Each structure stands twice: as C-alpha cells, then as structure tokens.
C-alpha cells in the first residue's frame, strides 16, 4: 500500500511537469498532428514510424514556425504558403506525411499503396498517389507524402464531412520487427477546416491558378472540336465528290 501511495504521488508530481511551460505554441500544435510509434525487437532492431496529418491547424502553425525561424516578410510567408498548399493539393486530396526510421531488417514496401490505407468510419480508402521512393527497399530513414482522395470517387461527397476521427493504417508486412502488429494512427479531425487556409492573398492566387488551368482546358477542347469539325467537313467533301461522279455516269 505504501509503495502504491509513493507511486501515485510520484506520478502526479510528474504529471505537473508534463505541462510544457516553455514549449513554443507552434511546436505544441505541430506535435499534436504528428503521431509516432516505436517498435523494438528482442534481437536489437528498432523501427520508428511517424505520421503527420496536414490539418489546417498544423499547416498554419508550420508556416508561422518557418516564418519565425527564417524571419520572413509577409510576402515571403504568403509565397511559401502558396507553394506549400499547391504541393499538398488540399482542395482534392488528404495528404499525410509518413516517415520510417528503420534500424532493422531491410524494409520492402513496394507496392506501398497496398501497405497503407485511410480508414474513415467503416470505409477504407487506398492512396491516390504517394512518393514512389517508398517502393524501393531500404534501411535507415525514408520519408514522403501519401495522398488520399478527399471526395468519394463514386458519390463525389467529402469523405471527412461529419467525421470525428480518421485512422491511418499500415500493414504488418512492412517490417518483420512488427511481428504481426499492424500500425494505426488516430487523428481527431472534427474541427479541421482546410478551407480556412484559402483566404487572403493565397485565395486570389489559387483562384487565378485554377482559372488559368480552366482556360487552358477550354482552349484544348476548342482545338479538338475544330479538328473534328474539319474531319467531318473533309468527309462531306469526299462524299459529295463521289455523289457527283455517280450522277454523271
């Protein structure tokens, strides 16, 4: 009983220390959206896997953290934000950064899109795209982005609408260090709203970008239709010529 009391007291004291009194605000937010699991085998291998969910809160904190570190002006920060958001494709995709630190047997992850999935409610979604470097065997560090479609391919609906949490699921087959364990990371996304990111100067740049792409597509469609029209006109001329020949006979 005495030992239990000592244990409880020590635990409580340490819990007070647990409040990070001098941790940067941004670091706190960033660490909330990055989950890490470490696995060790009795042989001596170790594998650390981390997943970073690019929620709006994380992205804002990350951008501000970079701006502070690099002493950027407002324009430079907006430029960085624009380029960063472009790479993440948040309007269509759910990006997740996966990192492996493998100090154990070689990992053979290919095809990586068969190894990782996003679980939302009762639905499991495979990646739409991912960093192809994951397909190559490795020991040591490897890190890259994995993209999942934000809108259901069949219904077109936002798969995260009304959802409280999502799960990133990685199969045990990625490493023998796991010995049958699958890896899961849970992220609470109920309050995540990526549309907040697309405001201000960035919003204008993204709209310009979108409209330019749309203009380009319309021009291509026009050229294609003109070509088809030309083909039909040529065929009309050919047929008309033949009809004229037959009429003369």
């Amino acid at each position, binding site marked *: 009983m005495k*030992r*239990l009391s000592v*244990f409880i007291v*020590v*635990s409580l004291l*340490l*819990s007070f*220390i*647990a409040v*990070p009194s001098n941790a940067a605000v941004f670091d706190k937010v960033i*660490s*909330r959206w*990055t*989950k890490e*699991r*470490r*696995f*060790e*085998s*009795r*042989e*001596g*291998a*170790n594998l650390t896997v981390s997943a970073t969910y690019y929620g709006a809160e994380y992205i804002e904190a990350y951008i501000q953290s970079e701006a502070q570190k690099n002493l950027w002006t407002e324009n430079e920060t907006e430029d960085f934000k624009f380029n960063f958001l472009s790479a993440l494709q948040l309007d269509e995709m759910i990006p997740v950064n996966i990192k492996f630190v*493998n*100090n*154990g*047997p*070689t*990992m*053979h992850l*290919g*095809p990586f*899109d*068969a190894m990782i999935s996003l*679980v939302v*409610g*009762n639905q*499991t979604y495979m990646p739409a795209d991912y960093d*192809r470097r994951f*397909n190559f*065997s490795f*020991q*040591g*560090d490897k890190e890259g982005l994995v993209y999942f479609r934000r809108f259901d391919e069949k219904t077109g609906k936002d798969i995260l609408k009304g959802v*409280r*949490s999502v*799960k990133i699921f990685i199969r045990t*087959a990625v490493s*023998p260090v796991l*010995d*049958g*364990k699958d890896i*899961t990371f*849970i*992220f*609470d996304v109920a309050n995540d709203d990526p549309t907040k990111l697309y405001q201000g100067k960035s919003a204008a740049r993204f709209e310009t970008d979108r409209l330019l792409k749309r203009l380009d597509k319309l021009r291509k469609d026009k050229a294609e239709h003109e*070509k088809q029209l030309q*083909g039909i006109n040529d065929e009309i001329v050919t047929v008309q010529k033949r009809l004229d020949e037959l009429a003369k006979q």
Partner: protein
Amino acid sequence: MKKFLAVLAVVALVAFAAPAFAANPFMDVPAGHWAYDAVAQLAARGVVSGYPDGAFKGAQPATRYEVASVVARALAKVDAEKASKQDLEMLKKLVMEFKDELDALGVKVDKLDKRVAVLEENIGGWKFNGEFRFDAKWASNGDNFNNDYAGGEGRDVQFNNSRARIHVTKFIDDNSLFFGRLNSLGATWDRFYIQTKLPYDVKFTAGRFNMDWEGDYGLYNGGENDGTFTDFTVDGFQFAKQWGVMNARLVVARNLELGTDDEGSFQTNSDESHMLYALNLHGDFNEKFRGGLMAYLMNGDAAINDEYAGDIQTYAGYFGFDFTPAVTLQGIYYMQKIDDLAAGTEDSPNLWKVQLNLKQDLLKFTSLWIEYSQEDNTFLSLNQLAGGCGAYDWSGNTFFLANRGWNNGTSKILFVRADQKWNDKWSSFLRYAQADVDAVGTDDTKMWTVGIAMQYTPAINFQLAYDQIDYGTGNVATGGSLGRNGTESVVRFRTYVSF
C-alpha cells in the same frame, strides 16, 4: 491477378508514350498491316481470347475502330500464364498503335497505374531479409556458480550467436501475403502464415503466428521487457474485423507450448494439450483514449500420462490515455480461473499493472517509464510458461522472480526505465526493478541495468551493458522458489546486424 497485371503492364507504356497522330477511326487498316498477324498469333497461342473466329479473315479490311474493338476485348482476357515477354511486347505495340481508338472505346489507357513497374517486379517476387545478434557475456560467480547469465553450467563467460533469423515474404496478390521466419533456435520456422482478406473485409490469418496483444497496444516497455501474460506462438486461425472505432480479433489455435512452470504443476505432453479460444475487442475512441477487453479460454484435452488437462480462463480489461503527445497513462487488469488446483491454492488469481510513460520530448534529457504491478503468485503467465522471458527479465533469462514460488501471496513490483537518445547514433538507458514477492522468509529482489548503445549504421548496432541482480539473503528453495541468494552480475557486449 496476373492477367490484370499483364493488362496494366500493357497500358502502362501507352500512357507514357508520346501522343500518336489521331488517325480517322473509320479508316481501313490496310491488308497486310502487322496488326492482323499480331492479333492472330496471340490468339493462336491462347494468350488472348474473346475475338470472334473469322475476324480479319474476310476479303474486306477492318476499320481502325473494328481492330481496336478486337484489341480491347483481347486485353480484357489476357492469359498471363501463357504470355511470354515477346507476347507482352506485341500487345503493348498494339495498344500504342490503336491508343486513340481504345480511348474512345473507354479503355482507360490514360489512367496510368504507375505501380505497374513495381508490380512487375513483385510478380513472383520473394522478399528476403534477416538479422542476427552476437552476445559476449562475462558474468560474476555470485550465484553459487550457476551463472545463469552466462548460460548456466558453472561457466562465467559465454560467447553466443544467440539469435539468427531469415524472414521471407511473398505477395500472392493485392490482398494476400505469405510470411515465414526461420529461427536459428532449433532451426525452426517459428512464423509461417498466410494473411488474406475474406468477404465483409475480414482479415484472415492461418498458420503459425505470434500472439502478443499486450505488445500490440504498447502495454509493456518494448525491447527486452515482455508481456505479463501474452507473447507466445500458436498454430491456428485468426479473424480480424473493423467497425468504425472498434475492431475485433478472434483466435482459434493449439500448440500453445503450455509447458511446465517452476512448480512442475503444469506438466503437459509436449505442447498439444490445450485448445485456445481468444477474443479481443478494442476501441480507438479518439486520438487520446483507447481501451478494450480480452478473453483467453484454454480448454484442456483429455489428460495423457499425468499431464495437466484443466481449463484456464483469463480475462482482461485495459485502457490508455494520452494527456499530451508526450504523457501517457495506461494499465491492464487480469482475472484468471484455473481448474484442478490443489485444495487451498488460490485458483482465481488476479494481476494488474499501471504505467506512466513520459517521452523525451517532455523532459528533454530522458524519457521515463514508471510501472507498478500487483500479481497473485498463482497467476499463470502463458508467456513465461511457453519458455519465453519473464516480463521484467533482462538478458533473456527468467530470474527476476526466481524466488517467488507457488503460493497464495501477492507480489508487488516496481519497474522504472529511463532512455536517453543523445543523437541519431548514441543512446543510453537505465532500468531498475524491485519485487516484494510476499512469500514467508523471502527477501525482496532488486535488479538494475545500465547500458550505452551505438547505431553504427542502420544495419549495425553495438550495445555495452551492465546488469546486477540482488536476491537478498536467507532465501530457501521450497514451494517452487529457487532459493537464490546474493548478487549476480553480467557485462554484456551485443552486436546486432540486420540485412
């Protein structure tokens, strides 16, 4: 699956090919065009089917659309078993030639599956990797020359290639894989299973696999500690299913290696004496809180030659809560019911443990794991009975609770471990364990370990560590206790290599 991959392999090249000049699809494909022969040859060899007999054999040449239709039908039924590399090359050439017409027909040549090259590499591809560790131990003579740290037999130095393993993985298809592990200990396959997906998204495993539900949920400090109850190998079946935040696992298995414990009460005839039915219900309720229930029912067969054939039921409830990403509180409570014990023996033992885990992000210079456990001394640890490590043992030997014995007492155990990661290469650790085994006339056991490790490369790790165990004095070998006294220590240098 191979057929599907062959199709993808064919269309893959098309998407990377430069866009061909869009010919009039109603143009004839001239007689003598190579496409006619190509399709005919592929059909004659049985590589493709589904194109009508007599096609392209008439006097009139076919239009591009007609040939593309035939190619599209052919692609749908490629028999990759019969296709040679040349056949695949021919198919690719056909697809490239009629790309626009196939596109118009709705064959998704534009939607390139970029994993084709990787899949081609993985078709029939076995993946190998492996590891071994080499331990050099110098032990003291403190325990009457038993020197369990150096493998017993009175020796105090041991050089031992203690673990060597080869792992084999093969993807059978998108949903199925085979995994095998050849273990140097007895040169046996101690993992040998297939995993596949059944209807209703049920994940199915069959063969020889490891059950370590405590480890799956991080309920013990990884590495050289072990589960209190689980972490053992079985031969059987596992079914796993996910519903929203919940997931369930059901195991039906045998060959639990339910061997003999220190008391000798659980002598079994090799390891085929009990059926195991186990169920785990787990909930990841949100990113902070998780919990679940476990049940293990071990039903004995009819007894053979005085072996133990009683039933053992073990139930557990567990939880984990993350106060912050760096602070976790978790615990597990076990209840057990053991049949056929001697009168007066506690046959409903309980065990519980609670853990506080502080990551190095919080304290900066170290992480900290603090664990307190209370265990009835008749609680059967299947992990330990299976010849594995005790939960708190170090260097792989089951000595920390050597003096506990088999009695109605309740052991109280405190375990603390601090890990320091100095940089990517260097790390160190300290661990301390203390057990009050609550047996008359038995001293507390204390153990501490200090070590330093160097990750020389991702494939090579060196560790130098010192461990000391102090059994106290006046302990007597009775009632299952080994009666160890005094201290024993070991210096261990470990080399770990993986590939």
